């Protein structure tokens, strides 16, 4: 990737940061604010991982430990959802 390409990613990250702050100030319902905030954060993290960490063009062996970590990471949150599901108000 060229320096111009990296600066393009930088511009996108700055725009998404502005979008994060703007989305939080819209006074939407808390579940919508949370979903929007985490979606934008995931988009930013994906840009950093793909282009700055070169995951876009990495060898398959890199993805295995990451996939394992992703599954275990998801399990951590699944356990919490499981134990707390009785009183988490979805959409509230």
């Amino acid at each position, binding site marked *: 990737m060229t320096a111009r390409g990296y600066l393009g990613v930088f511009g996108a990250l700055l725009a998404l*940061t502005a979008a*994060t702050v703007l989305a939080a100030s819209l006074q939407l319902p*808390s579940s919508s604010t949370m979903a929007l905030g*985490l979606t934008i*954060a995931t988009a930013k*993290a994906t840009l950093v991982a793909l*282009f700055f960490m070169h995951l876009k063009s990495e060898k398959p062996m*890199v993805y295995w430990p990451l996939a394992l970590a992703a599954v275990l990471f998801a399990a*951590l949150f699944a356990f919490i959802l499981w134990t707390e599901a009785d009183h988490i108000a979805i959409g509230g």
Partner: protein
Amino acid sequence: MHTLPYTTEIRPDTGLTNPKLGIWLFLASEVMLFGSLFSAYALLRSGAASWPDQSAVLSVPLATLNTVILISSSVTMVLAWSGARAGRMDRFRIYMGLTLLCGAGFLAVKAVEYGDKFAHGLLPSTDNFLALYFTMTGVHAVHVLAGMVVNAFLLGPGARMWRSEPERFTNRVEVAGIYWHFVDVVWIFLFPVLYLL
């Protein structure tokens, strides 16, 4: 003394250099470290009868500034690697210096934030939210500091390797960069979770 094998040539069975696979294995463990903290946050917040208005307790402008600083440092870090790879040590030095400057700026803003909280009697012992805030941002700040130590080494005494083994040096910069970008990714999630949501 044995040197680490496969620092520049690709290891046939993994398709990667050893440092590259090593940093990704380390980062997989880091995902779990921060995963435990984020899940603790989710558990304590979802189980709490009431939760403070986070954006009223913390400074959103300062955190936004720190987000911009850390994103900028990721760009300068990747440009430092790009410079080293192109054989342009002058560019490497400028961009690595800027990366270090951004890291120091981030920690300085963090110190101002912490100082302001302490001055108002807001301590980790105040409530669950502040305990999580100080733990998560504190662990993250230690990671920033660790990255700065590595980056300072690569800019200072470590740069000698450039003359003897330029390819190995460039790989070191790339691996240090992958770690630095990970620290940026963690902040990308900490910012909305702790300050905005």
